[in-house]
C-alpha cells in the first residue's frame, strides 16, 4: 500500500540520526575553515553515539526498507554536516554503494567495512564514462590485474581505505570493455596525487589518483565477470548499475543540506515574526511566506523522487530511469533552495557567522558529481524516447 508515514522504529532511527547530526554540526565550520586538515576520525562525543547501524536492527513488516530508509539516514546525516558525515569509516563512501550494487556476496562481506571511494572521471573524459582510458591487464602468471591510468575528482579520495576504479580491459571493445575493480590503498603503484581546493564540501577531500602498474589480485574485479559481453551493452550496464544506487544517494546528501537551510530560514523568519503557516492562498500571504512555501514544496518533491528510486531498487524493480530522475531533480532543487533561502535571509544569509552560506556552497556539487544534470537528462530522455546513444547525443 502507498504510504509515507514512518513506523515507530523508522522514527526512532531518524531521531537518533538527528541527534548525532547535531553533534556533527558543532564541527562543521571548523572543518570548512581548515580544509587542509581532515575531520577527526572520532568526535569527542563518539562514545555516546554507537552509530546508526547499532540502532537500526532488522526491519519488521511495518518498517521502511533498509535501502529506502538509508536515503533518509544519509540526508539526516548531511543535515548535520556533509564533511563530518563523509569522514566516517565503514560503508560511508560512494564506492560502498558501488560494492553493494555490483559486488558478489563474498566481496560485500569482505570489503563492506572499509571506506571506499569511487574513481570514474579522468582528466580527458569529464562526464563521459565510456571514454575511460585507464587500463586493466590480466597477468596470467601472477593471477593479478595490472592497472594503469589517472583519475580526478575522486570524492573522499584521500581518506578512503580503497577505491572502486573503472578501467577498460580492451579499449577497442568500447563500453563493453569497462569493468570496475576494487583497489585498496595498500596496492603497489596506487599514488594519491593531491587534494583539490573547492567551493564547498571543503573538508571532504577530493583527490586525484595515479595508477602505475598497480597490481591487485584477480578476485578484485567487482562482480567477478571477466568476460566482455557481445554488443556494447551488458558489461557496461553492469558497471552503470552502480549509479542506480549512488545517484539517489548523492541527491539525498544534497537534500539533507537544503533541508538544513530551510529549517534555519524558518527559524529565523518566524523568530522575526513572519507568519509561515500553510493554508491561505497567494492573497493571504507575505512575499516571504510565498517564496518559502515554494522552496519547501520543491524540497519535498525532490526528496520523494529519491525515495521512489530507492524503493524501486529495494523491491527488485528496474530503477535506472528513476535514479537519474532523482539525481537531476535533486541536483537542481538544492541549488534553487539554498539560493532562495539566502534571498529570504538577506545579508544575514551571506555571513559566515551562520551555516546557510556554507550549505549554499556545499550543495553545489550535487548537480555535478556522479553525472551532471545534463548527463541525467540525456539518460532520462533516451529512456522515455527509447533512443540509444547514437540517436540522442
Amino acid at each position: 500500500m502507498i504510504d509515507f508515514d514512518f513506523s515507530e522504529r523508522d522514527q526512532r532511527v531518524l531521531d537518533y540520526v538527528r541527534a548525532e547530526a547535531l553533534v556533527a554540526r558543532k564541527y562543521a565550520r571548523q572543518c570548512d575553515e581548515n580544509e587542509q586538515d581532515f575531520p577527526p576520525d572520532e568526535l569527542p562525543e563518539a562514545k555516546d553515539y554507537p552509530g546508526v547501524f547499532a540502532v537500526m536492527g532488522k526491519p519488521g513488516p511495518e518498517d521502511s526498507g533498509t535501502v529506502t530508509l538509508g536515503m533518509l539516514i544519509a540526508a539526516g546525516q548531511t543535515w548535520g554536516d556533509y564533511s563530518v558525515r563523509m569522514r566516517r569509516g565503514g560503508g560511508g563512501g560512494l564506492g560502498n554503494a558501488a560494492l553493494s550494487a555490483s559486488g558478489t556476496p563474498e566481496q560485500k562481506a569482505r570489503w563492506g567495512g572499509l571506506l571506499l571511494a569511487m574513481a570514474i572521471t579522468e582528466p580527458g573524459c569529464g562526464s563521459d564514462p565510456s571514454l575511460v582510458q585507464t587500463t586493466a591487464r590480466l597477468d596470467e602468471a601472477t593471477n593479478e590485474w595490472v592497472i594503469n591510468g589517472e583519475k580526478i575528482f575522486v570524492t573522499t579520495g584521500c581518506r578512503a581505505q580503497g577505491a572502486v576504479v573503472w578501467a577498460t580491459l580492451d579499449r577497442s571493445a568500447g563500453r563493453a570493455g569497462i569493468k570496475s575493480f576494487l583497489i585498496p590503498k595498500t596496492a603497489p603503484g596506487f599514488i594519491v596525487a593531491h587534494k583539490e581546493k573547492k567551493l564547498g564540501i571543503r573538508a571532504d577531500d577530493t583527490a586525484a589518483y595515479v595508477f602505475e602498474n598497480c597490481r591487485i589480485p584477480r578476485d578484485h574485479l567487482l562482480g567477478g565477470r571477466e568476460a566482455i559481453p557481445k554488443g556494447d551493452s551488458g558489461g557496461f550496464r553492469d558497471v552503470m548499475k552502480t549509479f542506480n544506487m549512488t545517484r539517489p544517494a548523492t541527491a539525498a546528501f544534497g537534500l539533507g543540506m537544503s533541508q538544513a537551510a530551510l529549517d534555519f530560514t524558518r527559524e529565523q523568519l518566524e523568530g522575526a515574526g513572519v507568519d509561515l503557516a500553510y493554508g491561505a492562498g497567494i492573497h493571504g500571504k507575505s512575499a516571504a511566506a510565498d517564496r518559502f512555501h515554494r522552496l519547501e514544496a520543491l524540497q519535498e518533491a525532490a526528496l520523494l523522487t529519491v525515495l521512489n528510486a530507492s524503493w524501486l531498487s529495494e523491491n527488485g524493480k528496474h530503477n535506472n530511469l528513476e535514479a537519474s530522475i532523482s539525481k537531476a531533480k535533486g541536483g537542481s532543487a538544492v541549488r534553487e533552495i539554498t539560493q532562495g533561502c539566502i534571498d529570504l535571509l538577506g545579508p544575514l544569509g551571506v555571513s559566515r557567522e551562520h551555516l546557510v552560506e556554507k550549505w549554499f556552497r556545499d550543495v553545489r556539487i550535487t548537480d555535478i558529481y556522479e553525472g551532471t544534470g545534463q548527463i541525467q537528462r540525456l539518460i532520462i530522455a533516451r529512456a522515455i524516447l527509447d533512443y540509444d546513444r547514437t540517436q540522442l547525443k
Partner: protein
Amino acid sequence: MISFGPTEEQELIRNTLRDFAAQVVRPAARAADEASELPDGFLQQTWELGLTATQLPAAVGGGGEARSPLTNALVLEELACGDAALALAAAAPSAFAFAIADHGTPEQQKRLLPRFCGDRFASGALAWIEPSPVFDPLTLGSVAEAKGDKFVLTGRKRFVVMGDRAEDLLVLARNAQATGGGFAALDAFIVPRGAAGVTIGEREKLLGMKSLPAVSLTLDRVEVPAANRLGGERGIDARRLLAASRAASAALLTGLARGVMEYAIPYAKDRHAFGEAIAQKQAIAFQLADMRIETDAMRWLAWRAASALEHGRDATREAAQAFGYAAEQAVKLSDAGVQVLGGHGFIREHPVEMWYRHARTLSVLDTVAAL
C-alpha cells in the same frame, strides 16, 4: 513505512480508469470543448463506474468500502489524463457526497447520501470561490448569521461546478459568531438550490475547461435551518475539507500533465526538421525529460497528501504543497508541450493548446474538487 506500491485492487481500478479515459474521455474531449457542453450521456456513463457510491457507508446504501483518498487520487489522475474538464465533471458528485460523508452528522448523511447510491447520476455542488480579484479560500465575504434555529446566508459565489443542476449546494461561508478568522471561522451549509434568495447566475465562460458546467450564484438573506449546518453543532473540519480539495486538484493536474507528455513524446519522434527527428535535438529532448521528472514529482506530492488524509492526519501542509507545485508545473509543462509542437501546438487540430488552457484554468480554481 515508505512505500510507492498501490494495492492490487488499486492497480485494477487504475487500469479500468485508464481504459475508460482512452476509450471514452479522450475521444470526446475536443468536441466538448468546442461546444462548451458535456458529451450526451457522459455523466451517466461515468456514474456507472461507481466512483462515488463505492466509498459511501453501507448504511445509506453505499458500497461500504473505506473512504480512500489514495484510490481517488489514482482515479482522478487517470480521468484527467483523458481530459481534465470531463474528469472534474465526473468527480463533482464525489466532491459534494464525500464532504457530507466526512463532515456530516448521521442525520445529514441519512438525508443526503442515499441519492448518490442509486443507478441514476446525482449531483451536488460545492460553492466556495467568490468574485474577488484577491479571492482567498480562508477569508470569505459570504456570511452566515445565526437567527434563532436558523442561519441566514448572504454572499456571492462564482465557478460553482454543477451549480445549474445540483439539488443541493454546499455553501462555504464565514460564521459571524466565530471568534478569529481563518479556518476557525469557516462553516459549510447545505442549501437547496430552490431555496428563497438563491439566484443561479449565468453559465461561466472560461478560458479552458469549457465543457465543464459552472455557474455564478447569489445568496440574498437565504434562510436555512440550523440542521443544515454541515457537522451540526460541531461544524466542519475546514482544514480537512480544503486539503481534500487541493490534493484532488493536484491529482487532476498530474494526469493533465502526463497527457501532454504522452502526446509530445511520439510527436517529437515523428516530426523531422534539420534532417532528424526534433526529439533528437537536446533542446527538445531535455524538455521532454523535464516533463517526465515533473509529472513524477507532481504525482508523489499528490500521493503524499492523499496518504496523510487517509491516515486521518491534518494534511494542510502536504495538500498546499501538492496543489501549489502541481499548479505551477502543469502550466509550465503544457506550455512546453505547445512549444515542442511549434505551430502545430497553436492550432486546434492538436489537443495540446486545449490542455494549455485547461492547465491555466484548473490551476487557479482552488477548492473545486475533492478526494
